[in-house]
């Protein structure tokens, strides 16, 4: 079918993508008289059968071919054609064929599974904002609310501590224990209604920093050139890198947990802290800003850089374990 000029006033256009030439889903009816083409773009939801029959009859030219297509994204379509008989009407078989193709096309669009592989609608990731709901399997502690509000976050604090200590299990265990002891002793200072998880992370981080100050081993970075908008472009760079190695479709699904842990442990401490609190701890930017006592802009920059470094590292791991060769085989 010949290309149909886009109607800029109605069709959203991406500009850079060469996308959105057509609104989708939409119904496209094309009637092909003996010379020249005539097209109609109609929104989905009307009565295709009535519409195309009336359009056919109005052409007055015979014989002709009539095409019906469902437009998907990027001119993807599901199209069928039939030659119009001498009297300008379509044979019954063609009518049924066209309607079946239309039904198939609607089904396809409803599954949101077109050519680009959109298996799920885009949405923010779910966050675990609430404490785990399982009840503690031990008697309640004396201080009111501590068992219910603080103890359920022990898994999350432990994960944070493991990353803070670069997977040193003994140091991490001591850190978690110190964190909960300090929290218990100062439970009266916890402001009810605020995030207990953030409060525990703050205690954990401060306890860790105090130990590090004594040991002076922290790997810090400079924030001098941080720019969240620039650092956000890491999304593009890391994906292009993965694509160039044919890894974009399988990289993270094939990555071992221990490779992730090793890669996180290899990050500079300031990047690692933000990434762990966000991507493993599910804190939002404002909460991370509070826990680490840094501006939100710095949180974003460090987080985006950390994700980029981590993902680049995972690409390197994939190369090491042969995923790249498998992908290109």
């Amino acid at each position, binding site marked *: 079918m010949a290309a149909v000029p886009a109607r800029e006033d109605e069709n959203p256009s991406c500009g850079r993508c060469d996308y*959105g030439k057509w609104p989708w889903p939409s119904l496209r009816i094309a009637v092909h008289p003996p010379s020249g083409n005539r097209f109609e773009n109609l929104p989905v939801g009307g009565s295709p059968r009535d519409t195309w029959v009336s359009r056919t009859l109005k052409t007055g030219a015979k014989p002709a071919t009539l095409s019906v297509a469902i437009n998907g994204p*990027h001119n993807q379509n599901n199209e069928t054609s039939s030659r119009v008989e001498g009297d300008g009407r379509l044979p019954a078989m063609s009518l049924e064929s066209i309607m079946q193709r239309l039904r198939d096309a609607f089904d396809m669009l409803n599954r949101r599974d077109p050519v680009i592989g959109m298996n799920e609608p885009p949405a923010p990731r779910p966050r675990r904002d609430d404490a785990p709901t399982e009840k503690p399997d031990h008697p309640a*502690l004396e201080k009111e609310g501590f068992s219910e509000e603080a103890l359920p976050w*022990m898994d999350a604090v432990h994960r944070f501590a493991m990353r803070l200590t670069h997977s040193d299990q003994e140091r991490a*265990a001591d850190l978690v224990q110190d964190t909960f002891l300090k929290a218990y002793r100062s439970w009266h200072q916890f402001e009810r209604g605020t995030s207990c998880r953030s409060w525990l992370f703050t205690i954990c981080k401060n306890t860790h920093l105090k130990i590090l100050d004594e040991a002076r081993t922290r790997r810090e970075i400079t924030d001098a050139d941080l720019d969240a908008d620039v650092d956000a472009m890491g999304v593009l760079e890391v994906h292009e890198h993965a694509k160039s190695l044919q890894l974009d479709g399988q990289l993270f699904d094939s990555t071992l947990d221990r490779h992730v842990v090793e890669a996180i442990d290899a990050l500079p401490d300031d990047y690692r802290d933000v990434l762990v609190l966000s991507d*493993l701890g599910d804190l939002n930017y404002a909460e991370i800003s509070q826990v680490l006592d840094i501006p939100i802009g710095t949180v974003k920059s460090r987080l985006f850089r950390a994700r980029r470094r981590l993902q680049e590292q995972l690409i390197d791991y994939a190369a090491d374990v042969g995923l790249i060769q498998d992908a290109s085989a």
Partner: protein
Amino acid sequence: MKRDMIPCDVVVQRLWAFIDGELDPVSEDQVREHLEMCNRCYPRYDFQRAYFRLMEKVAAQPVPDELRSRIFESLLAETE
């Protein structure tokens, strides 16, 4: 009502914040509408979603039972 789509570079710049749920409602809708239409940006989103699925898996590691018991015992000792 149809609106002008924001360009791909703006979507890329906002993609992590979109996935993190940190955009204002208007910006979030703009990014979502673009992703539904764009065959270049949706794979970038899909790639990052796979990353977060992996991180969810990593984050599912529980505290070892011995440590949990040790911490609880130390809290009980504080109480006594």
